[in-house]
């Protein structure tokens, strides 16, 4: 998948990953990679700034923890983030269904009389 297409949906994907619970940055990246079965394998460097942007806009928040002697930033979905994710899901379902109606050709057409 082309990176520019994915980046247009990155915020929603990150919110979806955090819907399952608090995660640190690299765990978010791994979840994105694994849940997409390797299709979404963005460089880590693009994910951290996206997480910071989501925090600035109030869709997630973060806290620092100490794990194994090192600082770890852990992200949590906020109520506003949950609402934004719900809206993104609805929009995506409508959009993808419309695109599929136009692009997908392997469906069975009704027989003509």
């Amino acid at each position, binding site marked *: *998948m*082309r*990176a520019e297409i*994915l980046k247009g949906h990155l915020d929603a994907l990150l919110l979806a990953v955090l819907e399952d619970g608090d995660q*640190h*940055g*690299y*765990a978010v*990246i*791994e979840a994105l990679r694994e849940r997409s079965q390797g299709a979404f*394998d*963005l*460089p*880590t*460097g*693009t994910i*951290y*700034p996206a997480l*910071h*942007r989501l925090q*600035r806009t109030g869709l997630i928040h973060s806290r620092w923890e100490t*794990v194994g002697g*090192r*600082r*770890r*930033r852990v992200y949590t979905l906020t109520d506003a983030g949950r609402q934004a994710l719900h809206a993104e899901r609805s929009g995506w379902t409508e959009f993808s269904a419309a695109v599929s109606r136009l692009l997908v050709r392997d469906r069975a057409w009704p027989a003509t009389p």
Partner: protein
Amino acid sequence: MAGDPLNAPSAVASDPAGPIAAYLTALDAALSGSRRARADVLDEVHDGLLAATDRHRYRGATALEAEQAALAEVGRPELVARAFAGELATAGHGACWSRCCSPALWSECGGCCCSPPTGGRHIPASWCRRCQCSPSSD
């Protein structure tokens, strides 16, 4: 993601402390923003690199191979710094504003980025002497 410049091999200088230390030094030099904001970014990237290294080690890589694989995932320091630039500029300015320029602190402005209050009025400087941000653009 194939073809993404962030995935290009890293060209950081070698460091006796290892490739991750060399990478963090190069990233620190490339990052803009306040020292605290940069330190937070470096801590977060460092934690991610160590987590990625652990993952590669678990899959059988040697220590050096694991570190190099982790670095290949994160992207070249100057491009990672560029990806962070907008967020660090925003964070730095916001931090400066709350630290120096918020109305609650106007009485203490003499030693920070804002001009001292004059006759009960606050006259912000045209730019912040601490972080170079412009209070008027907040």
